[in-house]
């Protein structure tokens, strides 16, 4: 595996799942702005307009950009996970150092047929490296591949 390998993108549904999640997260703020608006403390639109603009930005644009920044490279003996918009991180976990593996699905992920793969290592830094937004079947297949590698190594 080289640094030059272009990372494999995540499943496109990951964008939709992130949008729904940020949409749900932004609801309390919109409600709060509406309440302030109704209270009429300041001229109309002072609260609701910026809040709605920010909400539109983080619901429409940010998930797309985050999706573009994320990716993984499944090597022969290691997994490389790339993520981060502002603070980029590029982590490589050799299969031989994986302690255990989790495949996790939240309700949203289940609705979109996605899963999160988490590799746990014994290191204090990067004790768990998670890769969200994989198709459920892919995540399970990757888990099996990595597990097979661990078993082969220890024998």
């Amino acid at each position, binding site marked *: 595996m080289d640094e030059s390998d272009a990372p494999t993108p995540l499943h496109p549904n990951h964008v939709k799942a992130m949008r729904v999640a940020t949409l749900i997260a932004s609801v309390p703020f919109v409600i709060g702005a509406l309440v302030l608006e109704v209270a009429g403390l300041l001229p109309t639109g002072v609260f609701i307009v910026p809040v709605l603009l920010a909400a539109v930005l983080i619901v429409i644009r940010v998930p797309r950009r985050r999706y573009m920044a994320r990716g993984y490279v499944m090597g022969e003996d290691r997994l490389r996970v790339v993520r981060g918009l502002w603070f980029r991180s590029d982590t490589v976990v050799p299969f031989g150092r994986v302690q255990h593996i989790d495949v996790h699905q939240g309700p949203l992920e289940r609705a979109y047929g996605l899963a999160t793969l988490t590799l746990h290592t014994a*290191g204090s830094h990067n004790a768990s490296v998670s890769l969200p937004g994989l198709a459920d079947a892919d995540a399970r297949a990757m888990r099996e591949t990595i597990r097979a590698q661990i078993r082969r190594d220890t024998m």
Partner: protein
Amino acid sequence: MSEPVDTPEPDERRTEPAGLVLSAISGLRQTIPAVIAMVFVLRDQGHWLLAAVPLALVLLGASVLVAWLQWHRLTYRVGAEDIRVESGVLSRAARSVPYERIQDVSLEQGPLARLFGLVEVRFETGAGGKDELKLAYLMEAEGERLREVVRERKDDAAAEAGDAEAGAGEPAAEVLFAMAPRRLVTFGLFEFSLAVVAVVAGAVQQFDFILPFDPWDFDEWQERLAGPGSWLSGLGRTAQIVGGIIAAGSLLLLGFATGLVRTVLRDWGFTLERTAKGFRRRRGLLTRTDVVMPAHRVQALAFGTGILRRRFGWHGLKFVSLAQDAGASSHDVAPFARWHELEPIARAAGFAMPTEDLDWHRAGARYRIDSALLAGVIAGGIALAVLVALSATGAASPLLALIPLAIALPLAAWQWFLWRFERHTLDEAQVYARHGWLAPRTDVASRVKLHSAEIAQGPIARRRGYATLHLGLAGGKLAIEGIPLARAQELRAAILHSITAQDFSRIN
């Protein structure tokens, strides 16, 4: 204590009943604050003694009863593959720890426990802190026996796994490092600490209701100085300066004394031995500890020193491993030694010393410049805010805004120093990284004992082309900051190559 009604199964054991005396004494210690609080509340009532004494007895009785119940319900068993402990009065817990997962067995004796010949046995598994298996208290001989059992069982397991232990055939223990009282005193002087001042201040704050005056009331102090203490303010300038010097001197003396006492209490009789299977460290004047660390569990070495003690040629060495040492994450194996004394210890752990002839690299100059500029920008921002605030309110001279600006200069100088001092390198077997200013340290990690490698870049770092390499180290942290991106990728590729070439379960 009376015999328990139901005797445990043959191989099940209980901890030593004499330990209950220690529990009772520590229970007594816990009831004292409650009794003091009650006396304080009731002191104005008549016959308060009549209420306080029975209450103290009831509290003490309750804590002894709880201790006895806990003791009665805790049994341990040394099995063929693991150690099992069943405990709990109301909710029961059964815990099993396999021998292969026990990092080391520590014996600890407080001053009281030593009187009774008892030890606290702790099995370090890397679970950390509260989750560790602990048996308090056992007889000294039983503690030693458990340690031997664990060691033998683990040796068998290790032999089956084809463990390549270098010194397996070594007969007797060899002393690697010991500190004579004289060395200890020198060490103590370098451990200057004003922590006691903070403790006293904290205690004053906690218990100021007991004091006959309010120590935080400035007006009252002034009154005292004007009244009975007026001789103090009337002494004149020279006497005040002398008084100030005496005060500073006593503070210094206090700092040295604290450092000395703390060091002697902790490190009295410090002995590090290389035994057949690992390292054994004993230390302590009142509380004696006896820790064993298997050599192959050492993940990395941390060489540390201080800005002052470095000038006198003193260094310290710690072992980084998953096990914990009295709350600290690494084991002190030579806290105060000459550089050449550390070499045999490192060699015994299977590590090479960091030498000057390695191909050391500095962090990128850009990283240091950006850090210095960032410090300057933040200081400038603070200065601007202070300037605006002071000009607007007129509370003090706006020239005070120069102070934060002046702080930016040493910060920039600090970055220059770090650029000169902080270095890293890589050889066939190890990663080396040198950090820090006041307490410089050099970390040496074995390449095959790393678990992951991450290249991290913030927004500035991305534009300027440098990165931080974080390496996953069990029981510690290892990062190389601000190196050019290409260098980080090169280091990561090399390290990953060694990691994937060797399976972890074989070396750990």
